């Protein structure tokens, strides 16, 4: 289980002669990922999704907050000690074309982590009846490739450029599985894959969840895919490094509360003829501008429903009232969680599985398209 509490990351950028600039990529993100569960993050470009993914896999450091893996707070550990925990969290890269070393065959790509893993297990006194010899990794590699739906004999000797995008992404997933991870982080794992093969990968991810009990963090700006993979899990809507709405995936999609979520969901294309647009579709008033400082609600400059208070005070996540929605979506017990640095009130009502949002004027709107009739044609 992974728990994130107020993860913050700020980048400093500077050119050779140009002045420094600070980019807050994450401003206090927290979430809980139960074993075998799924968490999705959606948000537009540059909102900090990749940064979050990198932090979770240990490729990037965080400069505020706490990451807790199985009850161990990672910030207190030395980098070497952290590695062990990060090993259990593996990332699936967005771009299958760059995620595989072009100079190494699939076999070589899988062999090294498998060997390492075998050695580790042998060392940690696993007893090793496992057939962990030289051939051990071969069998395991074949097994993993089969698991991701590839024909081992055909794929193993190939170089990445000899594989299609979908095949590559499957190899990438197989590679992530070599170290028996408990969590997979998929950062836009399908956006670079051809439409016709996209769904196959999504289905594979779902399968892994259900069959191997692997938890999934799914990062995307494509809401539909988030829904497809993150079924039953929570959906986090992230805006400029801050989570502005959170709830069960379907709940958020069907009844978004935060105007940003609503804009995002409104933007999902409608399959005309098959679907009809939601009645309350909205759009942001202007394009994103990260440069201007926003003391109040971060979305206020673009919010179609902004009011005076929005520009002054920074809203924090609060549960969405039962009565206000008038629908299902029980408010969980509110427990005080570590507040992110951006919060201006002392405490925050975060909940493990409630529908929460950061808006002063919450109102549920139906924005997503719905299918016309029952079936197609």
């Amino acid at each position, binding site marked *: 289980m992974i728990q994130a509490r107020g993860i913050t990351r700020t980048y400093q950028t*500077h*050119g*050779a*002669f*140009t*002045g420094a600039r600070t980019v807050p990529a994450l401003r206090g993100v927290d979430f809980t990922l139960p074993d075998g569960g799924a968490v999705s993050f959606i948000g537009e470009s540059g909102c900090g999704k990749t940064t979050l993914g990198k932090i979770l896999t240990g490729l990037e450091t965080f400069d505020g907050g706490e990451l807790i893996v199985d009850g161990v707070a990672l910030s207190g550990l030395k980098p070497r000690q952290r590695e062990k925990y990060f090993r259990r969290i593996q990332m699936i890269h967005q771009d299958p074309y760059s995620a595989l070393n072009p100079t190494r065959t699939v076999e070589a790509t899988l062999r090294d982590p498998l060997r390492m893993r075998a050695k580790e297990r042998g060392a940690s006194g696993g007893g090793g009846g496992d057939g962990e010899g030289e051939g051990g990794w071969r069998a395991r590699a074949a097994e993993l490739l089969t698991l991701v739906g590839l024909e081992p004999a055909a794929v193993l000797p190939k170089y990445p450029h000899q594989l299609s995008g979908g095949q590559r992404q499957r190899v990438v997933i197989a590679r992530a599985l070599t170290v028996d991870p408990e969590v997979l982080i998929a950062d836009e794992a399908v956006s670079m894959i051809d439409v016709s093969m996209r769904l196959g990968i999504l289905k594979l991810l779902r399968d892994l969840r259900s069959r191997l009990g692997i938890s999934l963090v799914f990062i995307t700006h494509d809401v539909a895919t988030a829904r497809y993979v993150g079924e039953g899990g929570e959906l986090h809507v992230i805006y400029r490094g801050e989570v502005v709405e959170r709830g069960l995936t379907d709940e958020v999609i069907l009844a978004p509360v935060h105007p940003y979520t609503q804009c995002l969901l409104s933007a999902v294309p409608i399959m005309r003829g098959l679907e009809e647009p939601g009645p309350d579709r909205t759009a942001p008033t202007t394009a994103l501008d990260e440069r201007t400082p926003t003391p109040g609600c971060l979305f206020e400059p673009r919010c179609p429903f902004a009011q005076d208070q929005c520009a002054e005070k920074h809203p924090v996540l609060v549960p969405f009232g039962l009565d206000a929605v008038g629908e299902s979506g029980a408010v969980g017990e509110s427990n005080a969680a570590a507040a992110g640095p951006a919060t201006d009130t002392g405490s925050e009502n975060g909940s493990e599985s409630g529908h929460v949002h950061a808006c002063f004027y919450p109102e549920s709107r139906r924005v997503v398209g719905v299918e016309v009739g029952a079936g197609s044609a």
Partner: protein
Amino acid sequence: MTGFARRLAGKLLAGLVMVWVVVTFTFFLVHALPGKPGDVQYEQYIMMGMNSEQASAKVQAVYGFTSHAPLLSQYTGYLGKLAHGDLGQSISYSGVPVSHLIWSALPWTVIPVLSGLLVSFLIGVVAGIFAAVKRSSRWGGLLTVSGSLVAGVPAFVLALLLLVVFHTEWNLLPDAGTSDIQYTPGWNLPYIGSVFQHAVLPVCTYALLSYGGWLLAMKSSVVSVLGDDFILASELRGITPVTRARYIGRNAILPLFTVLALSFGVMFAGSFFIEDTFDYPGLGNLLLKSIGTRDYPVMAGAFLLITVSIIIANILADLCYTLIDPRVRR
């Protein structure tokens, strides 16, 4: 632009630290050299037919200028003087300030290197564009190979070839010196003409040496720009070929400017090959002579100047990049 000023100051400071490191390094290196100044000369004088008294009198004069203080105190003394811009005094030119020698030599390196670079830059860039545009044709390939070949040929080989052809064979151009002695130096036509004439071969060598580099750099730059989408986009928008050429040219030449600054430093450091062959009295020549005569202060001074020029070139390159490219300008 205070950020800019601060960064520039930072770069300069870093450069200064580098200068100090280099000064220290060269100081001790130079003093680790075996032999005493003057030793070399003695035997040569003898062979030239000087009698041993005349020879030793000359050598004596040189000896008088070697310092006998302990190395460390020489070092601190040197640093202290250096801080005041005093590079010390030459040994082989007994007592002449090193800075005086360096200042007399400097223009004979800077001007040919600069003009050689500029000439080669202009020609190389044009040839590079041609090689890029015609890259699949025989001519383009030939141009490219010739560019790499010229870039690969050692400096002195070029210098020698030029010398053989233009001096020994055809006797079109003088082989040594900076100008004919008959002309009174100054802003008079014959003198300037003579300076030009003497500079032709060194400048041509510098130019030829760097020409290949420019050609190749420009070619690859143009090729990559040609593949850029905005070029195709401009074509699809019906922009005239002339304007498109301008787009390509500007974008392709941009990365070359930083290289230009850097290669100035490189040329500077390699100038002695050419200066020696053409007996051109520049900095490299001065360095060579001072090594031959164990003239530590001159050696250290010339080396220092070459190093400083490399450091400055580096800073300039950074600066160039920032100023020229709107993408990093802010």
